[in-house]
C-alpha cells in the first residue's frame, strides 16, 4: 500500500506568532514540523506496519521546509517530495491544494493522510479541496483509521460520539490531532533520515499555473481586549435575581 502523508513546516506554536508586512505568516523564526502532521505521519507509519508498503511525504514550502520533512523521515517515513517555487510564496488554499494535488497525483497513492488543519493558517480547507482536485472520496475528522482490503474505514468524530464512515481506496483521510501520539524517533532513525530521498519539484515540473490569490488579507487588528464584567454585591436581597437575569440575558440558563 502506498500512503502519502502531507506535512508542513510551521512557526513553532510555543513562540509568539507574527505576521510579515504583507499580512502573511512570518516564517523566519523558530519552525517545527506541524504537530498535527506528526500525528498524520504516525498513522501512516502504523498503516504501513500493519499492511506493508511505503510512506511518502509531500510538502509545500521554502527550501527550509526540508528540516520539518527530515523530522518526519526520522520517525520512519520512506521518502519525500517537496514542492518549492518562488511563485508559490504566499499561496492561498486553492493554489496550495492544486500544487499538492499535482505532486500527490503523480505518486498514485492508495491513501492520502492529512491533518485536519495546520497549526499556523488553521483554515482546514486544504484536505477537502485536495480530495476534490484529486477526485478522491474524503473521510474527515477521523480519530481512528482502519484499512480492510481495498476499503478504508474511519471513526468520524462528532460532538456526541463518532460515525463509522467507509470508502473504497484510493481515498483521502483527514485525521484529528489527538488520533495518535507521534512516536519518538530513535537515533538510528534520525541518522537514516539523512540518507533518504527528498525530491524537490517546482511549478514548471508539475505543469502548474499559479493564479493570483483569490483572497488576500487586507488588514489585521488585535481582538478587542475583554471588558471588565459587572460586579454584583450580595446585599442579601436582589443579588441572586440580578445574577439570574444576567445569565438569562447571556442565554447561559
Amino acid at each position, binding site marked *: 500500500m502506498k500512503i502519502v502523508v502531507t506535512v508542513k513546516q510551521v512557526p513553532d506554536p510555543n513562540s509568539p506568532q507574527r505576521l510579515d508586512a504583507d499580512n502573511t505568516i512570518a516564517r523566519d523564526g523558530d519552525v517545527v514540523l506541524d504537530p498535527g502532521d506528526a500525528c498524520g505521519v504516525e498513522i501512516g507509519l502504523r498503516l504501513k506496519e500493519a499492511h506493508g508498503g511505503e510512506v511518502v511525504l509531500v510538502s509545500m514550502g521554502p527550501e527550509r521546509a526540508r528540516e520539518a520533512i527530515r*523530522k518526519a523521515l526520522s520517525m520512519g517515513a520512506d521518502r519525500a517530495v517537496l514542492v518549492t517555487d518562488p511563485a508559490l510564496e504566499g499561496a492561498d488554499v486553492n493554489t496550495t491544494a492544486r500544487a499538492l494535488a499535482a505532486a500527490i497525483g503523480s505518486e498514485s497513492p492508495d491513501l492520502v493522510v492529512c491533518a485536519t488543519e495546520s497549526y499556523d493558517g488553521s483554515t482546514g480547507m486544504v484536505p477537502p479541496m485536495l480530495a476534490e482536485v484529486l477526485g478522491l472520496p474524503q473521510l474527515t475528522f477521523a480519530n481512528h483509521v482502519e484499512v480492510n482490503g481495498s476499503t478504508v474505514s474511519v471513526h468520524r468524530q462528532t460532538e456526541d460520539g463518532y460515525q463509522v464512515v467507509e470508502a473504497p481506496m484510493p481515498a483521502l483521510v483527514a485525521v484529528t490531532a489527538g488520533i495518535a*501520539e507521534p512516536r*519518538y*524517533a530513535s*537515533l*538510528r532513525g*534520525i*541518522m537514516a533520515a*539523512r540518507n533518504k530521498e527528498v525530491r524537490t519539484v517546482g511549478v514548471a515540473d508539475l505543469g502548474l499555473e499559479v493564479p493570483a490569490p483569490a483572497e488576500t488579507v487586507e488588514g489585521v487588528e488585535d481582538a478587542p481586549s475583554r471588558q471588565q464584567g459587572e460586579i454584583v454585591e450580595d446585599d442579601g436581597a436582589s443579588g441572586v435575581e440580578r445574577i439570574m437575569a444576567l445569565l438569562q440575558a447571556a442565554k447561559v440558563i
Partner: protein
Amino acid sequence: MYFSDAHQELRLHIRRFLEREVVPHLEEWEQTTFPDSIIKRFGELGFLGLRYPIEYGGQGGDYFSAVVLSEEMARAHCGGLGMAVAVHTEMATPPVLRFGTEEQKRRFLVPAIRGDEIAAIAMTEPDAGSDLAGMRTTARREAGHYILNGRKIFITNGARCGWCLVVARSDPAAGHQGFSLFLVPRDTPGFHVTRTLKKLGMHSSDTAELLFEDCRVPADFRLGPEGEGWKELMWELQGERLIAACGQIAGAQAVFEYAMQYAKDRIAFGQPIASFQVIKHRLVDMANRIAAVRALVYETCARWDAGEYPVREISQCKLLSAQVAVEVADDAIQILGGHGYMSEFPVERAWRDARLARIGAGTDEIMKEIIAKTYGL
C-alpha cells in the same frame, strides 16, 4: 561544536519522552523506587544502546549521544533513575563490549541494550571503598567454574539486576594482578541480595548489599583474561567518572536555571530578589563555575570519544563537577530560603541527590590523589 543537529533532534525526542513518561511519576518513584518496566521502555526506544554497535541492538551513535541522554535525565531532575540508567549503560555494559567474547556479548549485552535485563556492577565492599585494592571477594577456580565468595555493598540496581559484573580476587597472592571480572546472572545459586539500603538522596534508585556464597559461575562468564580485572576496572572507572561529570554539570545547570527564575519572580522589599546585588552576583558565580567546568567536560568527552585515555582530565572533570553540583544546589537553597528547604521545591532533592557525587565513582580525595599522581607528585 560537540553536538550535531542529529544530537539535538535526539535530545528533543528524549526530552519529550521524559516529560510524558517519566517526570509525572518521579515523585511517586522517590517513595517506591522506579518500576523495571521503565527501563524496558528506555530499551524499546533505543536509549540504552545509543553508542553501542547496531549488531548488538544498539543505535551506532558516538559518545555525545550518551552525553545527550545523561544531560536530559539531569535536566528533568531524574536523580536516582538517571543514576540507574547510567550504571546500566555507562558502567556495567561498556566492559562487556570492550572485553567480552562474542558469546558474552550475545548473552549479556544484547538483553541489556533491549532493556530486558538490568545490569549492575559490584566492586565496593564493606571494608574496601577508596582502598579498592583491599577487596576480599574471592573467585576460586574449580572444574570449569569459579566459586565466588564475599560481600559487596552500595550496589545500584543490585536488587533488580538481571546480571551483575563482579570484581573478585582470582589469585589472592598476586596483588593488583590477582583480580578478575565476572558476569554473574542474578539467578545463579549463591547470589543473594541481603538487604536494600536507605540513603540521603537518589531515593528512586535501589542500593543493595550483596552476598556471594559459594556462587558457581561458569568459567566462560569471566570477562577478559584472568588477572586482568584491575586494568579493566580502571578503564571502566574512567567512563563512569566522565558520564557522572556530564550528569552533574547538567543537573547543576537545571538547578541554576530554576533558582534564577525564582529570583526573578520572587518579590521581597518591593522588588524581585534577583535585582539585589547579593543575589545577582551569587547567580553569576553559579553560572560561571558551571560554564568553566562544562567546557572541560565537553573537551574531555571529545578526547575520550576519539580513543584517548585522559585520566588526569577525567579525574578533574569528576572532582570539579561534583563540587560545583553540590555548591550550586546549596546556593539555590539559600536563594529560595525556606521554600528551598521544602520537599515540594526541586532544589531540596537536588541538594540531597548531588551530595553523592563527591563520594560515588571515587571520592574527591581519591580524585586528587589520581591527579597528583599524573604530575608525579
